[in-house]
């Protein structure tokens, strides 16, 4: 079908779905009730995107705080050579940094670098497990953003705007695509290593899109989804009995008043009932074979990125459209030994690279990698120089840096074993093939089957989109 026409149809349908009447239009309620039909206005019903999609689902691994890309992905021998020297004036002239002023000293990476796989992609020794899957990674070394503080930068990555209030990437994706499992939320968020994300729930919020598209946080403590457990003292049979009665009474109401919303409500309660069984089930990783748990480094009952990577696989396997992982603790300023780019980074990276590599391999083994897109990023990069506050100490750390950094993707439609763009010799600027956050977003939406300029929602009189008024698809990284 003509993609423009198809999009139009989609938009029209969406308009109907979003309308007060629940989109039921002129359909006869009584017939629907009689037939026991599925809800006609399920906004999470799976739907095809307007353009051919390479990726059917997506997993984001967000390393909150922003990892030191110059010690993980972007080897700069020139920087090592000039380690300890003053930053050249032109690299810092007129720039502001979060915690550095004056003339800082260049900081060459103390890490060892390894050429990996057939592609020869250079990766540091902090992430030995990712070496194994280098040929599946698509590494972009020419990212840049506009923001150098955590909260606005993170909102920028996931909502396209540094201010809170816009829909997040996962919300746009589920708004466009619905979800393939009607017993689970379509957009799931998993958080490890304690606090964060920086942008609060706005980093996975639905903004002005209907709240059905907001990320549902699945928790490692308490209910995996809020209120999913029946209260103590009530068992499943009693819940079923209550719901049957509720349904009977609601149906009487629907017949009496003929309002389509009532039919939708009946369906939502039934879905809730199914979720009560399916959510705890999918969140229970103790059912995985020991070999799989070991591959990820996952331990049932813990809150860790390893567990969350494994859960991400379980969720996408079940048809969840978008899984967003946040792992706190990557803000390598050097204010303590844990934030040192030597041992501190080795320790932290071990909690990430093993499960990340395992996730890629596991998805591939299950035939899911081809149409599952993985993105791994922070909210920005880190400076090629030592952070100002900690420069006199023993710990090596780097400040926030928006002008040039690296992210990687894998799976669903990106070129494997491919490096896109490069930084200049000292890592201060993008040398070629600049990719702005909005370009990255345009590309992600493209892979999911959308023209980023056409996936819009009207709010306050304006058609809003993830990429605001910017963004170009980075064609070079498409497989």
């Amino acid at each position, binding site marked *: 079908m003509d993609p*423009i026409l198809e999009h139009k149809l989609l938009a029209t349908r969406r308009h109907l779905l979003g309308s007060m009447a629940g989109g039921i239009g002129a359909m006869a309620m009584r017939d629907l009730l009689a037939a026991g039909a599925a809800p006609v206005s399920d906004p999470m019903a799976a739907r095809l995107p307007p353009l051919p999609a390479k990726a059917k689902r997506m997993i984001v691994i967000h390393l909150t705080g922003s990892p030191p890309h110059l010690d993980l992905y972007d080897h700069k021998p020139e920087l090592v050579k000039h380690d300890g020297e003053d930053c050249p004036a032109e690299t810092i002239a007129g720039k502001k940094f979060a915690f550095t002023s004056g003339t800082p000293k260049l900081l060459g990476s103390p890490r060892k670098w390894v050429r990996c796989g057939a592609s020869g992609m250079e990766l540091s020794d902090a992430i030995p497990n990712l070496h194994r899957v280098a040929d599946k990674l698509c590494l972009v070394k020419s990212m840049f953003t506009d923001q150098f503080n955590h909260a606005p930068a993170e909102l920028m990555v996931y909502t396209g705007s540094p201010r*809170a209030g816009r829909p997040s990437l996962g919300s746009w994706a589920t708004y466009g695509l619905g979800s393939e499992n009607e017993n689970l939320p379509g957009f799931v968020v998993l958080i490890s290593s304690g606090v*964060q994300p920086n942008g609060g729930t706005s980093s996975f919020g639905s903004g002005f899109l209907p*709240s059905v598209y907001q990320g549902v*946080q699945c928790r490692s403590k308490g209910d995996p989804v809020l209120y999913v457990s029946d209260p103590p003292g009530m068992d499943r049979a009693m819940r079923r009995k209550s719901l049957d*009665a509720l349904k009977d*009474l609601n149906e009487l*109401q629907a017949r009496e008043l003929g309002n389509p919303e*009532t039919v939708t409500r009946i369906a939502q309660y039934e879905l809730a009932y199914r979720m009560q069984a399916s959510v705890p089930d999918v969140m229970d990783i103790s059912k995985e074979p020991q070999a799989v748990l070991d591959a990820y480094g996952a331990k049932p009952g813990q809150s860790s990125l390893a567990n969350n990577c494994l859960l991400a696989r379980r969720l996408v396997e079940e048809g969840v459209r978008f899984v967003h992982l946040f792992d706190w603790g990557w803000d390598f300023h050097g204010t303590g030994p844990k934030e040192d780019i030597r041992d501190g980074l080795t320790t932290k990276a071990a909690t990430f690279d093993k499960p990340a590599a395992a996730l890629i391999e596991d998805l591939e083994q299950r035939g899911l990698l081809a149409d599952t897109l993985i993105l791994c990023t922070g909210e920005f990069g880190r400076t090629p120089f030592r952070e100002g506050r900690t420069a006199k100490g023993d710990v090596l750390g780097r400040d926030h840096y928006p002008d040039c950094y690296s992210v990687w993707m894998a799976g669903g439609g990106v070129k494997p074993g491919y490096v896109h763009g490069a930084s200049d010799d000292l890592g201060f600027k993008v040398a070629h093939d600049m990719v702005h956050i909005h370009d990255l977003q345009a590309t992600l939406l493209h892979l999911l089957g959308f023209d980023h300029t056409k996936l819009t929602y009207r709010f306050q*009189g304006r058609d809003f989109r993830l990429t605001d008024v910017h963004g170009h698809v980075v064609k070079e990284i498409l497989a």
Partner: protein
Amino acid sequence: MNAFATGLTLLTRRSARARGLVRQSATLICVAIASHASFAAAAAPALRFDRDIRPILSENCFACHGPGKQEAGLRLDSAADATRELDSGSRAIVPGDFGASELAARLEATDADVVMPPPHTNKILKPEEKDLLKRWIAAGAHYEKHWAFQPIVKPEAPAVTDPAATSPIDRFLESRLAMEGMAVNAEADRPTLIRRVTFALTGLPPTTAEVDAFLADNTPDAYERLVDSLLTSPQHGEEMARHWLDVARYADTHGLHLDNERQMWAYRDWVVKAFNDNLPFDRFTIEQLAGDLLPAATRDQKVATGFSRCNVTTSEGGSINDELLFRYAVDRTATVTNAWMGLTGQCAVCHDHKFDPISAREFYSLYAFFNSAADPGFDGNKLLTAPTLKLPSGEQESRLAALDARLPELKATLDEVVGGLAYVDPVTLDPKPEPVRAETVWLDDEFPPAAAVRSGPGGPLDWFTSTVPGEVLSGHRSLERTATGIGQDFYESGAEPIVIPAKSEIFANVWLDPAAPPKALMLQFHTGGWKHRAVWGDPAVIGWGQLGTESLVAMGPLPEAGKWGRLSVTADKLGLADGAKVTGFALTQFDGHVRWDLVGLSTIDDPTANPTKSLSAWWQERTGKDKLDDVPKPLQAIVRQGQEKTTKPNEIDLVQRHWLTKVWSEQPDRLVLAARALDDAQKERDQVDAAIVQTFVFNDLPAMRDSFVMLRGAYDKPGEKVERSTPAFLPSLPIVEGIPLTRLDLAKWLVSPEHPLTARVTANRLWQQFFGLGLVKTSDDFGSQGEPPSHPELLDWLAAEYRESGWNTRALVKRIVTSRAFRRSGVVEPAHLAQDPENRLLARGPRIRLDAEQIRDQSLALSGLLVVAMGGKGVKPYQPDNIWEPVGFAGSDTRNYKRDSGTALYRRSLYTFLKRTAPPPFMVNFDAPNREQFCARRERSNTPLQALQLMNDTQHIEAARALAARMLAEAAGDDASRIEWLVRTVLARRPEPEEAAVVMETLATHRVRYAADAESAKKLIAHGETKPPESADPGELAAWTLVANMLLNLDETLTRN
């Protein structure tokens, strides 16, 4: 099918709740039915630019040929521009001649390079739209100013055939319905009606007593009197405020990064009070936008300016001050533009508006009104980011006044006493006084103040109290311990460190039980660690420290048992040098029964060197020191320079006075008393002052900041300088040369009689509040991209009426809820659904899902748990763990959610503490905005997460149990009566037999289940902080709790029917 026939087939089944259709007069039904895809236009023959044409042009053309951009030189939003000859030689529109218009050719072209709109825009004109354009051009292409920008002229309400339709609102609506050929529903039955209007006006359900009274009231004005009483209930102000607080983006935290608490709930309470006082909307506007600028502004008027302080702020390190200030001013400008004028000002932050005639220059001219705000870019993560206003209560005010009157008297008394003193510094005596031995006691009946005392091993702290002389050495009690092995009492933190002077001796007194003497006694001292020990008796038995070092000094045998003996050791011997700071001590024994008393320090006191006896010595100690925390700020510089360099008598006097009153240890009683009286009064004043509630207010800087058009919305790219002014397409706000306009001018302009937008936008928002949808559905966009009103005349009538009534909000609300339209039955007929799925024409009554707050408040109200106390600091009701924690920063004061207890759990939801980065789940789940930005319209979604919350949330389970308990106490004893009681309480109506049967059957199942499992029953009814009645049988209460929970989850319960 015509409406009449529909009515016949659909007469309701339930006689008890008769609902049906009122037939319009037969002549009306015979009018041909014109079915419209859009309800923007009535079926009127004449075309109107505003209603029929502009929406098409705006949607499809203005982006490239409008106010913001004129590709090929063409601008289609004004007649002159659209009809003039273009550079290409053609004319887009030739009035009266469609064929000659270039537009015609472009619309019909098939060549992708020629056709308009171009394919890449994704816009395709429908044939009927093309037809409208054709007819319009053929008829002369008459342009009109956009409807919302035209002056408001009060239209005459049309005549309708039904004499009962007396209100103008109904005459407008019903004439339109007649034109569409739609029959209207009858009035809703009374139970539905009272529940609907009570929720609409108070956000709460009616009580059964209120329902009964209404059902029994057969007077013709029963409904009107009900409305009047609801409008004057305090809960009305709360319900109205809730909607406005969405617009004002009110919350209890700053919103970004640490997202710390901010204190401005007084503004929220002001809004409630404003509605309860029925503050006219013009004053409501002026006080919020410029209350601080009113002559002799009252406290309330200043509190109202909190409106412009509700925006999200940050204090994240590394942010740029100028950018933050810019962002805040933009937010405030856009909020005012949108809230009062329904215009999407944000577009003009970056460029001239593409659709509406608001240029970037005009936006920044509005922004100039808010660009001189006195509040800082960085909020400091503070509870009170200046400017704030203190709000003392009457009691606090009078206490402060009393103290302020008393303080000078006390000060005078002290001065008099000080003046009468004949202090002689011992340094100046000749001969100098001899040093004497003096004791400082650390422990006598109590450990040092604030010491974190711990005990063990060997059991808890124990005191021996006795009045027999000699049994207790000093005071009224001794520390007592019987140990097997090691036993001790100690502290190592909490108390002020003890400074050890030179030549000190540390002592402790002990009484050993002759029947059970210990093997060893030990004194230990903590200086950042336990490093100093003295032991009597067996030095090895306790086993700590290394003998022969200061970590274990053997002091010889134990004192004699059966009488008080003194242990003493010089500080030197323990390695406690002059000035060492002891942060704790331990009294340790091995075996035996021991009493301890009077522990302290014995030292040689040289009055000439003692800073509490010699002013010189005190001063000398402080001379040249940077940190002088124990000296009042104004004296620090003088003290620092030293006694010798201080020569001014008044300075000497000040220091001496401070020393005599605050430091001197040999004060005569009259000085002690006078100094303490002043001190106490001053402390009380400080405490009273600190306890005064404050609130964020809006002020301008003393000097105005210059404002510029910021190029492409970048804070650091100022373009042309602008002065404060209002957009040209709106009525002008005269500028007097040399006198800049103020926010007060702007506020007055917004509510001036000429302003076309404020009254329309506000009346429309009120309409939306009661009917679920506005007459202008896009209640936040009255520009050309917004949807035109479904009933333009009605909207103008409402707006004009509102203004003419003196902006009487309550009167307008009353008009709306007493209309026939509001009172109609909500039954949905298939024909209606087909013709008008969104109920824009209001042939049926409004039926909308309750809002988040209403749903929670309803559960609380029906269960009898609701606490109706109004106002005050936000409260923290039940919330699952880990809502705040995963998003909270380590340093944030809203990192950990500390649930309140007691009445705070049952307050109305309006008073729930709102943390922006992690709002309460009950709000988020039910579409409440997180108050990050202006919101005029909530979504109404229907999700499984909502179902889970209502089924399983502690708040709702507790409410269900409380409701069941209420039922057991209040209803008659048989099941049928109880079910009837429950349904009546929850739904304000009686159950149908069919419904009662369903409930009965469910009840029976649960009852059997719980009868066999008392443990589960007890668990279920134990939810929440309130306790189930002890008299209730757990199984019975549990079964009814589940029934109540189910009824509280009914679609009908969650809906304003």
